[in-house]
Structure formats: C-alpha cells, structure tokens
C-alpha cells in the first residue's frame, strides 16, 4: 500500500504507523458523562466494510499525523490530509455551532 503524504509525497506504507479510527474524538474530561465517553473513546471501534477515515503517522518521514480515507474492502486510498488541519476544522465548527 502507498500513502501520499501531503508533505513528503507518495511513500510505501512501511514508512507509516497505523493508529486507527479517526472518527473518534477525545471527549471533554469535565463533562458529567466523561467516564463513559472516555471508555468509548479508548475501546469502542466500529468495524467498517467500506471507506473509513483513519489516523496514520509518518514515522519514518515528516512525523505528521495524517487522516487517510481508505476503503477497507479494497485498500484503495481516496484522500490523505494533515490531521492537524482536520482537527482545527473540527474545533472551529464546534465553536461556531450554537
């Protein structure tokens, strides 16, 4: 499998480390349901057959965390973005939502 790092270009997957589902977001520790939310964050994962967003780390490259959109049935990668950009978008949309 080859991943097109936005900073380094296309590289073999042996340069990267896989973490997992990028759809889970670290919960607010001060929320009343924090215990349950963190449990789900740490342990509960969907097992998707189809396109998923997952976190990969360019460990043998630029050290960027990437959000890779990959189809688990074909391993086809349709999109790679810097995780920080997506995390900032997430934060901005959360702060503008009333």
């Amino acid at each position, binding site marked *: 499998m080859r991943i097109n790092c936005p900073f380094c270009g296309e590289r073999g997957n042996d340069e990267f480390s896989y973490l997992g589902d990028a759809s889970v977001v670290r919960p607010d*520790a001060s929320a009343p349901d924090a215990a349950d939310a963190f449990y789900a964050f740490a*342990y509960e994962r969907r097992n998707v057959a189809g396109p998923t967003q997952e976190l990969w780390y360019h460990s043998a490259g630029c050290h960027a965390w990437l959000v890779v959109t990959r189809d688990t049935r074909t391993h086809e990668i349709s999109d790679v973005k810097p995780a920080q950009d997506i995390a900032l978008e997430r934060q901005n949309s959360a702060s503008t939502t009333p």
Partner: protein
Amino acid sequence: MTQSQTFRVSGLGLVDRTKSLDFTFDGVPYTGYAGDTLASALLANGIRLVGRSFKYHRPRGILTAGSEEPNALVELRSGARREPNTRATVAELYEGLEAKSQNRFPSLSFDLLSVNGLLSPVFSAGFYYKTFMWPAAFWEKLYEPIIRRAAGLGSAAIEPDPDLYDKANAFCDVLVIGSGPAGLMAALSAARAGAKVIVVDESFAMGGRLLSDVRSIDGKSGVDWANAVVAELAASPRVRLMPRTTIFGAYDSGTFGAVERVADHVAVPAAGEPRQRLWHIVAKHTIVAQGSTERPIVFGNNDRPGVMLASAVRSYINRFGVAPGQTAVVFSNNDDAANTIDDLIRAGMTVAALVDTRPILPPAIKSKARKHGIRVFEGAAVADAIGGQRVSGARIVAAYGTAQTISCDLIAASGGFNPNVQVTTHLGGRSQWQENLAAFVPGTLPKWMAVAGAANGSFSTSSCLIDGARTGAEAAAACGFAAAVATVPSTDDELTEVSAFWHVEAAKHKAFVDQQNDVTAADIRLAEREGFRSVEHLKRYTTLGMATDQGKTSNVNGLAMMAELTNKSIPATGATSARPPYTPVSLGVLAGEHREKHFKPTRLTPSHDWAKERGAVFVETGMWLRAQYFPKSGERDWLETVNREVKTVRSGVGVCDVSTLGKIEVHGTDAGKFLDRVYINMMSTLGVGKARYGMMLREDGVAMDDGTAARFADDRYFITTTTANAIKVLQHLELCRQWHWPDLDVQLFPVSDQWAQYSVAGPRARDLLAKIVDAPFDISNAAFPYMACAEITALGGIKARIYRLSFSGELAYEIAVPARYGDLLIRRLMSEGEEFGAIPYGTEALGVMRIEKGHVAGAELNGTTTAADLGLGKMASTKKDFVGRVLAQRPGLVDPDRPRLIGFKPIDTAVRLRGGAHFIGKDEEPTAQNDQGYMTSVAYSPMLGHWVGLGLLARSEARMGEILKAVDPVRGESTLVQVVPAAFYDVEGARLRV
C-alpha cells in the same frame, strides 16, 4: 561416459550448440548446451525418470516445460549451497551443475518405499485426519516417523547460506508481466507512447510461447519477431527488461514483489554479486500477460514418465531441439494440441495416433492427420498409460467401449488451457468461469491492472497481439501519454476450439489429479462421499492444490470433477484463487542483507569507542549497545566489578553514559499548558532553571513512561523519556499536539541523537564538574541546588547543559554536550577525575543503585501498572485534565487489592533473589490461586551486603514486615522473603541534596 544427447534433433531449437555444458545427475556426467534447462538437457540425454512422488514414491518424469512443473523436483548443488525442490524445468543449465533426484530410497530406479503404493488405502484422502483418531501414542512413536521418512521432498542445506541476497526498488509507469506476444506488444505500444516501462519474465529468454510454438508474424518467424521487439525495447532508455525475474505477488497500490535470479545460472556468484535480488516494483499501471498453463487430462497412470503436456512437447522440440521420445500418441480435447503433430514429425518422431475426446474433429485437423498417415480416434480417450518407469503404450478406449493398446513412449496430452490468473486474484479478485473456453478468466481487477492475451483467455497469437497493443496504449494513456493503438502485425490462422473434458472414467489404474501431492481421482470421489464437497473442504481433506506448485496443473481438474460428482456447475462448486507467492521464494532473498548482525541497526553511544578502549563489556538494550560494566584486571566475575562500581560511586565519583535516553525539545507559548496535559503532574508551574520528575499515562489510565522535564525559558522545555520508549513517546506527543489540541502553540523536536549526556554521580561529583564547566557558572549547592538546570559552556566554550538530577541517590548531575563532543567530554571527565578516583560505571551498577533507591524502571513500567501501583499516585494533579486521568479512576484500576510496588529482602541474607518469582503465602501451596504478585527487579546490594528486590504485591502497604515465599518455578526455587519499604539505602534522601 554415456552416449551424449541422442535425443537432440539437428537443425531445431534455440540452444547454442557451440557452447557445450557438462553437468551431473545423480552423479552421472552428461552434457547439454547453453540455453538448455536441466529438464531439456536430461531429455536430450534420454533421461525420463527424474524423481519419486511425495506419498507413493511412484516414478515420475517431466510433465511440463515451465514453472508449473509438479513432478521434476530436484536438489541442485551441494554443501552449503544445496537447494532442494527446484523444478528442473526452470533450472537453467550451467557448466558444472550438480543435480540429484529427491525422495528416493536407496536409489531412483530401485525405491524400497514405492511399496507405499501397495499401502495406498492407508495414504488415501483424509488419512492424516483419520489417523489422528487412533491412540495418540501410536501417532507419535509409530506413524509419524514412518510418514516423515516416506513422504517428503528434498533436504535443505545445513550450513549457513554463503551467498549474498540483495533488495531493490523500481518505479515505472507501466509494468508488463510476461514477454510473450501479448506482453511484448503491450510493452512496445506503451513505450512508443513515451511511458516508462518494465518488462519482467520468469525465463532467461524473452518471447514466451513464441520461443516454443512455430508461428509467423508479419511474415517473420515468431522468434525473429520477438527478437526484433526485444531489441527495440532494449534500445529505449525508458524500458527496463528484466528476464529471470518472477513477479511473486501483487500488493496494494500497484506494488509488486519480484525475485530476480541474478546468479542462479552459474555455479557460484561472481564476487560481490548477489545470488538473487528481491524487487519492490511500484507501477502506475500493470498489464498481466502471463499466458496460460495447459491442463493435464486425468487418466490411468497419467503420472508415468513419458506422459507430457502437449505444449511442453512442443517446447522441447522447438525451443530446445530435443525429441522427448520416439513414438507419440497425442491425446486431447482441443484444436491446439493438433499443432503438436507437425512438430513431432519435424523432430523425426512417429505419431502413432491422435486421440480426441470430441466426437467430430475439425476437417483441417483430420486431413492433416491423414496426410501423415496417423490413426485418428474421435470420441475416444487414452484410459491408461502402459509401462512402469517409462511409458511403453497407451490403452485407448473408443466411444463404443472397445479398447486397444498402441505402442508409444510419449503421450502428449492436453485438456485445454487455464489462463494464468493467479496474480489477478492476489488482491481478492475472483476469477470467473467462461464456458466456451472451459476455463477461469480474470474477474474484477484493480483499476490500475489490465490482463492481455492468453492470461485473459485470448489464446490465439493474433488475439494476443491485439490485446497487447490495446492494453499497452490504454496503460500509457492512463499514465498521461497520448497513445494511438499500434498497428497490429498480421499472423497465420489458428484453431482454438475446446470441449470440456476432465477425466477418463474407464481408467483401470491410479489416475492422478494433483501429481505433486499424489491426490488421485479416487481421493476426489472419497471426499465427495464423505461430505467434503465445498472447494475449501476438498482442498484440505485431500491436500489438492496445497503443494508448492499451488495446484497450477490440478486445481481446475479437481474442481471440475467435484462439480460432476455433485451434479453442480463449475462456478457453483467454486473458483480458483491464489495467494502469493506465485512460485516458491527462498527465505534468503526475503531476508536479504538483514541477517545476523545486520538484522537490525546497532546504535552506538557517544562514548562507545572510549568504552571499548577501557575494556567495557557491552549489552544490547533495544538497538543500543551500552556499556554494562567495566572489569578491572584481577576481578573474578561481573558481580565483583559491579560491587566495586557501586561502592566507588557511593563513596567517590563515577560517570555513566545516559545518552540513550529519549530527548525532546518542547517549544512554544503553550509548551507548559501542553506538558500539563500529557504528564500527570503540573509542569506549567515549573520555574525557569528548574527540572521536575514526571510521569505520563496512556489514555486507558496505565503508566506509559517517566522522565524529567527541564525548563530553560518561559516557552522552552526539554524533556527526557526512557531509552525504550523514546520513539513511542514522541509519536504519542505528536498525536496530542496535532490531533487532540491542534490550537496550542507548541512544537516538538526530537533531539535524542543530538546530545551526548553523562551522569556524574557521587560525593565528589561537584568537585569533578567544577573542573569541567566554564566560569562564571557557579556550581555550588547554593547557586545550583538539587533539581536545578542551566545552559552553560564547558571545556572552554563548548555549548553544554547541566541538570542536577539523581537516579543513584547520590549528589549527582547530568551534563550534556553536542554529540560530536561526547568522546572529548568522557575523556576529559576521566582525566580530570583521576585525582578523585573517578571511575566509569555501566548499566548494571546504574540498575543496582536505582533498586537500592526504589526507583521504577522498565520492569515496573511494564504496561500493566498504574501510577498508584508504583506508589506515585499522589503525584497526579487533581486540578487539571491529563491523558489517562479519567480512565485511571476506573474501579478496576483504583481497587485497593491491586498489587502495588514494595520492597523485599531475603530472610536468609546469604540467599539470592530471583526476578519473576511469585509471592505465595508462607504456608500456602504454590498455585495460581494463591499467587499474590511477583518480583519485578532484584539486585545484590553491596551497601547492605545482601540481595534486595522490588515487586508488586497485593495490599502491600498494610503488610510491612510480613514473611512470604518467593517461588521461582522456572529454577525450582522457593525463598522466604520479608516485605520492607521500597527504598533500601539513604531512605531519607539526604545524600542527594548536599
């Protein structure tokens, strides 16, 4: 000397008759020519019997002329280069080649174990499973040793492989797999359009079937056409031709694994040259043009030497100039096999009969046979081959049931062709049954893959060329090159009709479906009767297709026979799919240079050369090679050395290289805030010029790592991690920074390799360092107290950092200089320290002193312990969120019964403690139920004069003074120990603040 090459036909073949090569088979000398395979050279010398079969030890010959060969497996070379199970059909002949037949006892022609054939009821399908049900003792003592002797392949070399293996990467626009008419046309068309092209072929010569079949292309012979195309491709700077290279697997994103046999065709590789090379080929687009494999027909004794695939017969005649017999019977169900007649006659052989299962043959074939005076049997079949160690006749059964035997020494058989779809199924694609071809063709393909020619079911040369031209142009276009489909050269006409036919019911003798694994038609019937009908069950029950050839000549026949037995269609019965590798791959080439010391890199510390000069004993810790201890002459063993090192540090001064610690710069206006969120304790409150011990948790609440954070400016921290977790912690912190809190102004810089760092420990440490640091830095206790840090210069202007940290419990510092000054600094520390009796100490003394002080290390930070388990619960701040805080509060992790860190000492102080020993109540049995925890670290304390230990014990704080058994079942020891505080020396910590 035997009579040489009596079966070589003059005027035929592509071998170089000016280059004669000597070789031996089972010790007997023979000759062949350059351009021969071992198989063709054996046939040229009239050798038909080349091996014994896997289970029944039946005599076997050469069935094919390619990599699909199930029978002719031989041992090549000898000594350390001995290589078992090589197919003689792909082994390129070289001067001095030594080959041996396999699996025979005591000799090939007289094999005692062929009696296995008489015991065949025992060896039938499911034999292994059924035998397992017999008394287990029988299996181990009786059956297994016999089977291991009786069933088997060649034997591997015992000495280490003396040859080099290499790895390489290649990138291209278009990868073409196979260099037959389709592959060459595809490569030509893609290369002419401007694409960067790689062409691989498993053979040493390019041209594929054009080398083996008589064809005319554009008025030239197929061979001449292929040579002209290869010459044009070779001349193009955009094209790389890779003969002797097998694509063994297709992987995601257009990545392929390939093995190039660089020097398998010579006895010993040239100096510095690898034997084989592993390629990772990355292609934007790939054209699979791997041709097809002829199917045998399953009839009685169809495994006898002299039964050969019709296409292989043509290969031996046309490519190698060898007549594989004198009198042939051609047996087939398709038009293609009839082409063999012309070649047999050209080779001077007699064709005794053409036997075709079809009731009516095409007139062209019939008239050709008549012209040569060949008897034609329509709607008939060869039911059995006659003969033992070689074929002497064919028993032909006609449609109306009458049988007659015709003398012959060769049966050229063809059951049609299976496209080589293997590589197209490696990524999960399913092959599809095509009724009119009676074959599986490729199914859904990745969008970057196309299939051309016979591999796609386009069997005629003209359709191969058309397919190649089209797929080549399309592939180039997909890579952005404007490509017009090349003009397709004209070819002679071919007949390619086939009528499905699998096996001959009238067979009287054993009829083999899978010749490599000795699976017979009767085994398929037995599997059906016993209910193993799905293709996956069939495979596992009979071992069909599970040999090293992955069933290239057997899977479809087995599947079709099961379909007939169950009255189902072939697609309803199953499909064929393959996994890498396409052909066997040696472990040597997969390992490449990564063997022995080169298996992983070795990281050397900045003081390594100096430590080597000092006679240090080194220890591998992860990738690092660290000084374990520094023996002095006269010391009896490591313990004496380590005791001296500890005592010297605690009474004078010692220096230890701690450069292996992970080191990370944390910069930015939010650096303090960031560190608060990743450590359990507060770091934002740390004053500039101060350092603090810190612990990090995983998000699940378990301790991850510990180290120190030092603050050099408001927006500039420097943190250390344990040696083992340096990479993991950086990755975790980058995730926190980029993903959890992207808005924080913080940057991370890994600088583990940039700094050489030494611990200088002991009562005289300050005296020593005072001679190292530059003025005006004041190293006095008042100006630079415990847990201070500073950026200074040392040794006359070298940038340096100094930290007053102590792992040993003594007055101690860590001093760091840029790594390139590490060697200088250690030498200066030792020379300046001479007046104080300074010594170097290694990781062993470091470990002893940390255990004496009760500090945790890797054995305690083992991925199961929490901060509270390690007695560090109070460090956790309650005023902030941090990674792991919420889940560390889970009931299971705050259970007071959890094992917690505590100290242990032996009741009998002469006794040695053992790491890993389990704690059991003094009067209890050593069982898992009575297990109360275990010893994590032990050391002999020279200060106390006995062994001390750290361990994890349930409800440990409440059990001070209690006596337990420490049971080490591995060494069969049980020692009485007492629970004591987890600090053995200078419990108040007075020594480090002086």
